[in-house]
């Protein structure tokens, strides 16, 4: 899907809004993470079904239906009136991938949630952010009863770049989530300051 942005004008004071994406497979803990640290806000998006989703969704019997409603995990942290952080859980199902470019545009970075019981679920997200050169880290949600792995094992299993952070955390714990977000922002800063060519370039295809 192709998007174009509105012609816009510079304002003298624009409330600063940073955006972090929370990606990962179904049940990896996206909703839990967002709820642990931010004010959960209702957000729906009504989207036209893309060609891709038409193949995936069973649209038989709904001939005239060309849109789908997606309820999104959306959280907001208001630090100050002029500084907010938004957390967007990216819809995991393949049929919603057409929304990812829109979500990723202008994002500070992404947290890819990994569940060691279903590590393959986050391959797609890792590929996506690597391809878009969006700073991301892999956060291994330590579920009760799930096998514990060292971050290095996860790095190898996901074939991550040497500098991509891998952290173990608990999505239910506010302090733990806070550390993950701090690690991501730090990493994004090193990416920006280490790469002068980085312009936060538009990520839309």
């Amino acid at each position: 899907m192709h998007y174009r942005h509105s012609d816009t004008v510079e304002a003298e004071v624009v409330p600063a809004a940073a955006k972090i994406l929370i990606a990962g497979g179904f049940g990896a803990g996206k909703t839990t993470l967002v709820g642990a640290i931010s004010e959960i806000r209702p957000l729906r998006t009504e989207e036209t079904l893309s060609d891709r989703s038409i193949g995936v969704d069973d649209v038989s019997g709904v001939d005239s239906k060309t849109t789908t409603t997606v309820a999104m995990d959306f959280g907001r942290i208001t630090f100050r009136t002029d500084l907010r952080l938004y957390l967007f859980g990216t819809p995991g199902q393949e049929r919603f991938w057409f929304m990812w470019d829109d979500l990723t545009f202008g994002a500070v970075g992404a947290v890819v949630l990994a569940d060691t019981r279903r590590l393959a679920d986050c391959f797609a997200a890792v590929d996506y952010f690597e391809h878009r050169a969006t700073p991301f880290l892999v956060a291994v949600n330590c579920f009760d009863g799930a096998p514990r792995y060292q971050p290095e094992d996860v790095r190898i299993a996901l074939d991550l770049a040497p500098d991509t952070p891998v952290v173990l955390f608990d999505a239910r714990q506010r302090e733990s989530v806070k550390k993950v977000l701090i690690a991501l922002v730090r990493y994004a800063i090193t990416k920006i300051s280490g790469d002068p060519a980085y312009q936060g370039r538009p990520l839309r295809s």
Partner: protein
Amino acid sequence: MSVPKDRWLDRDAGPVVRPYAVTMGRTVPASGSYAGLTDVVTAVADGGIPAGAHLSRVHRRILGHCRQPITVVDLASDMDLPVGVVRVLLGDLSQYGALRVVAPPRGHETNERLLRNVLDALQAL
């Protein structure tokens, strides 16, 4: 238990009137361009609505909501309208000159400053 004929209209489907009815079926803003999720919308105080412009109740609600600058996502969330619908209606209002849509400034230095501010704020949480 009978299976509903239309599986889209389950309990989670939301209002039975499809949201795009609010836009009279339009899924793309009139200008063809979309406001970004974190673009900031502000109603123009003296925005003159052109004669003959059709403003619905929802258009007017949007205008009322963005007297103070507000991001597109917050607007959609506050009004409980899907983002896609809000974008179409914002496109109308923008064309009428009734509001301004401002994209967050981008660029290397701006991004780094924003990141450092967010880092400080997160650490102080």
